[in-house]
């Protein structure tokens, strides 16, 4: 029995650790650093119908315990991704979660049709939360009616399970989650980046050419934990949690909040080996807290709690 394995719709994984979309390219770059077959799965960069060049540079800025990015969904288009990128992942025999984006419902539907038909693609991650392009789907991500409508259509077009990736830039994340659940989503991915900005104090001008960007990294983990906690107690869909995870302890915290699997993004830039290192460390931590099967962690935070102080 493998104590780390987790099973989500379309994603039978030997451990819950998945690199997050956009932070791992199409996999081959990190394949130069370690054997990707150790991963639970991999999320590939957002695919759009046509290729996109993305935003002008600078595209990243550093913030306290975080970073801003405004890549702008650069990608070669769904056709090239299916022909040239995805096949490179075949040797690793890990589930592939295909992140998709678009400007119109039609584009989302067409991309879904194509990419979900790829034999190596295990599930589709519907990105309705990219804050960095006027038409990156964020318009779907902040209005729950259009989110539900898009989910319904994408689900109909997809031959694989569909995970809807939620934006944290909303007043009521539970309402959004309930709407896409009702619309037939198989799972949720949360959270995408918070919209942020940084100015060069000397010039008073934005660091990013795009001015605003998506805030990621440990800085946003408390927001991610809160949203996953709220949503998991109201929604019965499995959640792929993400937002600031950088170590095995963070993985346990996020699963305790309600996640069934955990995606790691920004931390890959800090340490390219972070995913294998987390996977290696998890069993020892499970021993510390007396957990056999990692999936037992999911949602344990909702049990009655005691203050950490008196538990010393």
């Amino acid at each position: 029995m493998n104590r780390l394995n987790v099973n989500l719709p379309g994603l039978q994984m030997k451990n819950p650790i998945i690199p997050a979309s956009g932070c791992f390219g199409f996999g081959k770059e990190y394949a130069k650093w370690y054997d990707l077959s150790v991963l639970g799965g991999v999320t590939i960069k957002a695919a759009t119908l046509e290729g996109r060049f993305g935003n002008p540079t600078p595209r990243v800025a550093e913030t306290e315990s975080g970073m801003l990015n405004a890549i702008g969904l650069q990608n070669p288009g769904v056709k090239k991704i299916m022909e040239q990128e995805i096949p490179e992942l075949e040797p690793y025999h890990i589930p592939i979660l295909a992140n998709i984006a678009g400007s119109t419902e039609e584009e989302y539907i067409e991309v879904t049709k194509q990419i979900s038909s790829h034999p190596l693609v295990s599930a589709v991650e519907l990105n309705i939360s990219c804050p960095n392009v006027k038409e990156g789907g964020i318009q779907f991500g902040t209005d729950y009616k259009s989110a539900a409508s898009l989910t319904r259509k994408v689900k109909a077009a997809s031959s694989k399970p569909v995970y809807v990736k939620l934006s944290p830039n909303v007043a009521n994340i539970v309402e959004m989650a309930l709407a896409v659940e009702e619309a037939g989503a198989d799972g949720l991915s949360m959270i995408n980046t918070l919209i942020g900005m940084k100015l060069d104090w000397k010039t008073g001008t934005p660091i990013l050419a795009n001015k605003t960007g998506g805030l990621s990294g440990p800085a946003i983990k408390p927001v991610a934990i809160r949203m996953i906690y709220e949503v998991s107690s109201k929604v019965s869909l499995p959640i792929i949690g993400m937002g600031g995870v950088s170590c095995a302890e963070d993985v346990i915290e996020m699963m305790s909040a309600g996640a069934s699997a955990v995606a790691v993004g920004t931390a890959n830039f800090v340490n390219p080996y972070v995913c294998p290192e987390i996977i290696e460390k998890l069993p020892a931590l499970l021993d510390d807290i007396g957990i056999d099967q990692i999936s037992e962690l999911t949602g344990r935070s909702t049990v009655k709690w005691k203050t950490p102080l008196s538990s010393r």
Partner: protein
Amino acid sequence: MKKHLLTVVSNKEIAHRIFELKLSGPGVKMMVTPGQFLHVKVGEHTSKLLRRPLSICDVNLEKEEVTLLYRAQGEGTIQLSEKQSGEKVDVLGPLGNGFTSETINLGKRALLVGGGIGVPPLYYLGKKMTDKGIKVSFVLGFQSKKDSFYLERFQELGETRVTTIDGSLGINGFVTDAMGPLLEDEPSIYSVGPAVMLKAVEEKAAGLDGYLSLEERMGCGIGACFACVCPTDTRESGYVKICSDGPVFKMGEVVL
């Protein structure tokens, strides 16, 4: 392409806010190509997460020692400048495509042009070239005298002309104002610095062959995040990644 925990041999200020950092460790063995860079973590518990790309300025293979020169300008490099001898520094590298031997062997004469913190990699490049019997000369541009560094060392390798924007040392002006005479024997051009400078150099050296090393803000440093792209007409994709396809590109290959 690896992660190394190197030991600080020395880390001292050699010019105004310019630090010379010597690091040693087995990993140095791999750092043989000038123009490649190390992606440096500035601290262990720091709130500054992103690594800083710093060019390889010199390498001593016997001592397994690599030298980096950096300007302590922002918060990360200032933190790096506080590292004491004996402390560890976490680096990725060597990263990127540097000045490979084909790149170096363009001709018998080479003109190396650098601006500000674009100067460091030219030292290692110049050394490799003179080893190969190529005649090198340098044009090095600085803001002002106090910002200049390593001049004697460059002079040991070849004729070195210095420009400063305030005229406090060498020729008053930009690197392009000093290139003229050195272009006469039609050297191949190697230049490192901010985009604006590279553009000017490219124009000034129009007609000559050469290579440019670009700069951009980076995330991953290894080709995965698409932070550092630069447009090009020479590739079907329409772009290159400075961190992994570069930082060194053939003159004219990328749109500056």
